[in-house]
C-alpha cells in the first residue's frame, strides 16, 4: 500500500528494524522475499492505523504493535472472530436430563 508519508511512522530504514524486532519478539518468519515485503507493508499500515486509533480514542487506551501487527484486518477477523452473533439469540428449549436432585 502506498502509505501517506505523514502517517508512515518510522522512516523505511527504521521501519525495517522495527519489523525485524517484531519478527524476533513474536517468532515470525516468511516463506519468500515477496511474502516478507507484503507483510512489511501490512505491518507499516497497521502501525499507522494504531496511531490513528490512538488519536481517536476517548479513553486512556494505547495502541501499537501487537502479536497481530503483520495481519490484515480481514485475516485477523477470520482467524479470531467467531461467526457474527445473530441480531437476536435464537429461541431454544432447554431440558435437563437428570431428575434426581443434587446430581449433575
Amino acid at each position, binding site marked *: 500500500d502506498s502509505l501517506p508519508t505523514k502517517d508512515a511512522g518510522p522512516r523505511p530504514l527504521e521501519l525495517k528494524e522495527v519489523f525485524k524486532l517484531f519478527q524476533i519478539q*513474536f517468532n515470525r518468519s516468511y516463506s519468500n522475499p515477496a511474502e516478507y515485503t507484503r507483510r512489511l507493508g501490512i505491518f507499516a499500515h*497497521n502501525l499507522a*492505523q*494504531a496511531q490513528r*486509533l490512538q488519536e*481517536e*480514542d*476517548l*479513553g*486512556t*487506551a*494505547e*495502541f*501499537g*504493535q*501487537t*502479536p*497481530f*501487527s503483520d*495481519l490484515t*484486518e480481514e485475516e*485477523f*477477523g477470520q*482467524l*479470531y*472472530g*467467531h*461467526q*457474527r*452473533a445473530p*441480531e437476536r*439469540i435464537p429461541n*431454544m428449549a*432447554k*431440558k*435437563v*436430563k*437428570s431428575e434426581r*436432585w*443434587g*446430581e*449433575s
Partner: protein
Amino acid sequence: VPPTCDWRKVKNIISSIKNQGNCKCCWAMAAADNIQTLWRIKTQQLVDVSVQELLDCDRCGNGCNGGFVWDAYITVLNNSGLASEEDYPFQGHQKPHRCLADKYRKVAWIQDFTMLSSNEQVIAGYLAIHGPITVTINMKLLQYYQKGVIKATPSTCDPRLVNHSVLLVGFGKEKGDMQTGTLLSHSRKPRRSTPYWILKNSWGAEWGEKGYFRLYRGNNTCGIAKYPITARVDRPVKKAPVSCPP
C-alpha cells in the same frame, strides 16, 4: 453496586490466561471459564473444566470454526456437566472430534444459564455478587490494543457487530490525570476519572495487559452490553429439597 470489583484478587478463582491459537473457540473458552469460576466460587473446589468437550459435543458441530456461548451451555446441560481438562484436554485442531463426553466423570455442572439486562449497572451488580460472566464484543480494535481503557464510539467500533466472546472479571475507575500547568509533549486532554470493565481474553499473556484488557464502562463500548450471558451454578445439595407442607 460497589465502586470497584476484581475477581482476579481472590486466590484460585480466575485461572491462567489461555491461548486459543488457530482455533476459533473463544466462545467455548469463555463459557468454560464462566462455569469453572462460578463452580470454584460456589464450592471452593479447584476444578479445571474441559473446553474440548464443548467443541466436540456442540450441536452445530463446528469445532474450531466458531460458535456461540449459549450453545456451549446447552451442551453442558445435555451432557449433564463438564469433564475435567485433564481427562478431556484441549486439542485446538481444526476439525471436530466425535463427542466423548459419556466416557468421562463430570467435575462441574450447571442448573441453567441466563442472559442479563443490557444495563451496565445491573451487569456490574450481578458480577460483584455472583461472579464473572461472559460477554460478546466487536473485537476490531483489539488487533492494535496494547494497554489502557478503550473508549470507543459506534462509528469507531460498531456495537451491533459483535464477534468475540470473553470473560468479564471486574470493573473499576481510572483516576483522572488532570494536567496542572505542565505542558506535556503531546497535548493530552485533561480527563475525568474513567470507569472501565476488566476483561479476560484468550489470546495468550503476551497480548494486552498480560492477557487482559479494559473497556470503558457506561456507553456499551464495542457492544459489551449486548449479550451478557452466564451459567447458573447452585451449591450441590445432597438432601432432597424441603417440600411445602399441605
